[in-house]
């Protein structure tokens, strides 16, 4: 009886192990291959607006300023700042230090169609710790700036 019981336990254990292995395998596969599509554009949004302030066009290799950020006169610069030499886009976030709104610097790369937040001020620096993204959205809070990707079937435009 007891030997039969332990046999059954062993089988259960084996089954559970196998199940986990299969699930683990599927998870790894999903991570590796689920996001194989490429982004055609990355859109940078500020606040609750659904109109991107800046569009990074990975197909035609250009950065498009759609409109200026509304910023009070206390800030001397005009945002967004598009720096093509350093391949960065700088927006003014909502997070304030000593009453001054802080900038969020987004670096883009046409080669691997990726975007990374390289500078921002916030309590936990969550969005700059996200690293480089080619597909998942980068969300900066409390700066209220987000980067979202448009995936596409198009490989090139000529």
């Amino acid at each position, binding site marked *: 009886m007891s030997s039969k019981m332990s046999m059954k336990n062993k*089988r259960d254990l*084996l089954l559970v192990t*196998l199940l986990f*292995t*299969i699930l683990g*395998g*599927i998870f*790894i*596969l999903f991570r*590796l*291959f689920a996001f*194989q599509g490429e982004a055609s554009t990355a859109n940078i949004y500020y606040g609750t607006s659904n109109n991107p302030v800046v569009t990074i066009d990975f*197909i*035609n*290799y*250009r950065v498009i300023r759609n409109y200026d950020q509304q910023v009070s006169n206390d800030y001397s610069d005009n945002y967004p700042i598009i720096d093509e030499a350093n391949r960065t886009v700088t927006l003014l976030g909502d997070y304030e230090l000593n009453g001054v709104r802080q900038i969020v610097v987004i670096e883009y790369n*046409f*080669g*691997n169609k990726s975007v990374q937040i390289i500078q921002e001020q916030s309590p936990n620096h969550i969005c700059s710790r996200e690293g480089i993204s080619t597909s998942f959205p980068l969300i900066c809070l409390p700066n209220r700036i987000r980067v979202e990707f448009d995936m596409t*079937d*198009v*490989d*090139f*435009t*000529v």
Partner: protein
Amino acid sequence: MKKGISICILLISIIFLTACKKTDTLYEFSFYDYMDTYISVNLYTDSQEKADEHQTYIEDVYSEYHELSTNYEPLKTDSAYLENIYSINQKNNQVIEIDYDLYVLIQKSEEIKTLTDGYFDISVGEVVNIWKNIILDVNGDEENTTKEIPETVFQNALTQVSEIELESNVIELSDTDGHYYIQVKSTHAQLDLGAISKGYATQIVYEYLVEQGVKYFSISAGSSSIAVGQNIKRDGGVFNVELDNPVKNEIAGQAYGMIYVNDIGVTTSGNYEQYVLYQGLRYHHIVSPKTKLPMQYYHTVTILGQDLGILDAVSTALFSMPAQVLSDWIALHQEVLGIEIIQFNYDTTITTYLTDTVFEEYSG
């Protein structure tokens, strides 16, 4: 029970072995410093060493042809080369020794000139510069949002180009004992390899990758020129390539159609990236050697073919041909050259000369 375990193991094996099918990995690199454009290369190979080797070779090719063909600056003092287009343009009428690679490139340009009945001509740089300067002035002027140029500027350009006498066959190439020479037989003619050197270099890169057994790759040389092998991500190895709409508006959208291609080069000559308007017509950087003016027969001419070395130059030539001349030319040369054409005409209709490639025009 044993059967159950076996099945499980089999299942796991299938899942993992499927994942291991792709042994090659993607390597991506890009260059900003050559041919006044952004060049990006994606290729699949099995090791970092091989990828580095390919990158070095490819960069060397673009770097060499950039140095040799630029007409903006002289060679650096420590350059490995004898002359470049800038320095040749300073020495009209002199017999100058040049490097073999530049010699072959100029020879190829002259062949394409003959092939296109003179519609492609590298010796009209002087005329091209007049139009380029007007376009640069207007596009650099942030206050001029309409891109419209005043009559005085246009008339001035016409006067300037009419004063330039274009001589035929100004380029004389010769070689003796393994030395190569050029003589530009004119007091004023200026050479401009802008419409050929990038495609020519890309062809060298393309042949290199094929020879190296790289099957999955793509080269994007600027916004209007690509060369592709097979696409690893899609059945049939196909790349989906959209054709940029040169008269973009909200209704027509950004692209006017799609082509499905692999193992081929595709390049578009167009009037829409840099141009000025005069009386509603676009004056752009592709200047007809016949009229000395930018012509308004097409908004874009897209050409597909295996020999990338001629694609850029031929599309430039076709752009200045009236529709009937182009059509007759295609009838004569399409088969031999193995090329296909998609024209976005000035009246926004589309004409195609396709043999194998599938083209889908977007509706609306």
